């Protein structure tokens, strides 16, 4: 019997929509898990994914991808490729492995919620593939660092990190819980698949893959490129969901969801991707600066697509977002390096004379704002006063992004407000707007500083904080290059 062509059966196989008669729509799609935004029943049935795929094709494609990456892994396992990688680059992949793999499993929860509570059969079909994708990403990105565990105990944090209260993990978990672990189906499609996966995963999975291949880390490059091929497919659940919302008069609600999650994603990726690209990637291997990646892939490509759908750029674009491209990840980098015992990788200062020239060229004014501070740190390293390069207190963190509150300029105050008698600190107007747009969602969550002041961290010292964060001496971060990042500091290192 001849096989039917896909186009002959695809719509019949995926469009299993029907009107309910034995149960109400609210019982099938509870608002808390699905959220209608006032758009009901058949209005969702026009949902049409741009990328068509059958289960047979899915399995065939995924098996091929897994064959590819696991064979690269087993080949490279017999080489000394990892040992020869730059120490800063090793830190970039350790940061990635701690921040990403377990949240991939969280994302599979979000995808599975869409696979059950998405309001169109075609969407539920796509989300089923998305659920399997995210499980695959979790598995692969835990297995690869597991294979490196014998070389370096910091790789243990690929699995451990998300089970701790390390400060960066609190920031990441807060974002990912908000975006997909604890989100309804429609908001997940807008916030995870459209906002985050169409924009920011490109940056981490293609931008970093590009750098990986220049560094010579074929294994990591192949792994995250393979993952991005799945992301590129299942991220397309966002656009049809957005179109249904716009066509049913819910553009303002969709715009608000995008604006909220674009900002939250930006803050975390400035921390994770920003410092990896501009400080941890060896200078000779940097393909573009973080700002250039952002300008090309987010400001141009993503926003063009965004505007084509009739959406507006977020309200904070000119006044807050574009200025932060110039400074925020430089501040985060200095904080991560100075508080290095609190992270599970070894931060690379990345401020050798040649690197400082590159930073000043890419970010005019860097020397005046950040170079001067690195001068003092460098002097302390040179004169053997390493104790002066460690912190003795905590930074204040933002109650929205949970990242230390940094300043682009002299004398800029944090935004301090009160909600139901609780004092809150925000790094900027946008984080305050995000938090205040859903206070009931955020107001029971304590920042690490709130926890410190509430007595959750004992003893109330830096050592107590490290213990609370799950950091053990064998993984506590130290300078990636043993302080050899300028000519003079070699003396101290020796």
């Amino acid at each position: 019997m001849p096989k039917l062509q896909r186009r002959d059966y695809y719509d019949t196989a995926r469009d299993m929509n029907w009107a309910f008669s034995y149960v109400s729509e609210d019982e099938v799609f509870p608002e808390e898990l699905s959220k209608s935004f006032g758009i009901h029943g058949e209005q969702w049935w026009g949902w049409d994914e741009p990328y068509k795929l059958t289960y047979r094709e899915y399995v065939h494609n995924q098996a091929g991808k897994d064959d590819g990456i696991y064979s690269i892994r087993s080949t490279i396992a017999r080489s000394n490729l990892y040992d020869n990688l730059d120490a800063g680059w090793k830190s970039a992949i350790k940061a990635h492995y701690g921040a990403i793999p377990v949240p991939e499993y969280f994302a599979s929860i979000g995808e599975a919620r869409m696979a059950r509570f998405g309001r169109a059969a075609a969407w539920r079909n796509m989300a089923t593939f998305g659920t399997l994708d995210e499980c695959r990403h979790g598995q692969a990105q835990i297995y690869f660092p597991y294979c490196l565990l014998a070389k370096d105990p910091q790789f243990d944090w690929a699995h451990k990190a998300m089970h701790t209260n390390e400060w960066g993990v609190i920031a990441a978990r807060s974002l990912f819980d908000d975006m997909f672990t604890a989100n309804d189906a429609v908001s997940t499609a807008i916030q995870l698949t459209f906002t985050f996966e169409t924009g920011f995963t490109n940056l981490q999975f293609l931008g970093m893959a590009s750098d990986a291949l220049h560094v010579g880390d074929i294994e990591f490059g192949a792994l995250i490129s393979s993952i991005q091929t799945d992301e590129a497919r299942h991220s397309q659940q966002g656009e049809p969901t957005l179109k249904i919302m716009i066509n049913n008069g819910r553009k303002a609600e969709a715009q608000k969801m995008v604006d909220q999650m674009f900002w939250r994603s930006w803050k975390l990726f400035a921390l994770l991707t920003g410092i990896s690209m501009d400080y941890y990637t060896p200078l000779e291997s940097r393909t573009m600066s973080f700002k250039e990646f952002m300008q090309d892939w987010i400001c141009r490509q993503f926003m063009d697509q965004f505007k084509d759908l009739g959406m507006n750029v977020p309200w904070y674009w000119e006044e807050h977002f574009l200025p932060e491209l110039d400074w925020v990840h430089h501040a985060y980098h200095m904080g991560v390096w100075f508080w290095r015992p609190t992270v599970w990788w070894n931060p690379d200062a990345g401020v050798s004379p040649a690197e400082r020239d590159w930073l000043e060229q890419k970010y005019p004014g860097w020397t005046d704002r950040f170079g001067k501070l690195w001068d003092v740190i460098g002097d302390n390293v040179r004169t053997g006063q390493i104790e002066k390069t460690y912190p003795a207190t905590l930074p204040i963190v933002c109650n929205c992004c949970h990242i230390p509150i940094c300043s682009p300029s002299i004398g800029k105050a944090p935004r301090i407000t009160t909600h139901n008698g609780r004092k809150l600190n925000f790094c900027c107007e946008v984080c305050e707007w995000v938090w205040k747009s859903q206070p009931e969602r955020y107001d029971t969550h304590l920042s690490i500083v709130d926890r410190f002041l509430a007595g959750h961290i004992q003893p109330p010292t830096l050592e107590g904080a490290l213990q609370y964060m799950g950091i053990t001496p064998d993984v506590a971060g130290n300078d990636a290059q043993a302080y050899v990042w300028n000519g003079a500091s070699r003396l101290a290192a020796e």
Partner: protein
Amino acid sequence: MALFPLQANFRGDFVVLLVPVDDGDDMSIVADKVAQHAVGLRVAEKGAPKCVYYNGRELPSSMTVAQSGIQPMDWIEVAYV
């Protein structure tokens, strides 16, 4: 005399810090307590007097925290004069 947590910047530094002071500390002591987390660590030492700014005004060096109206976890800035 009681422990009194503040948010503080030393002018020119890049990050806001949690700095515990005592409500009986005067502003010269507060300035020193903030400076010890930034000056000589990231901000270059100047050997000049320091002052505390709160709500946009400079507080007298002899004024104590308790007298100043500063509340726990309020933000202050310390700078070289």
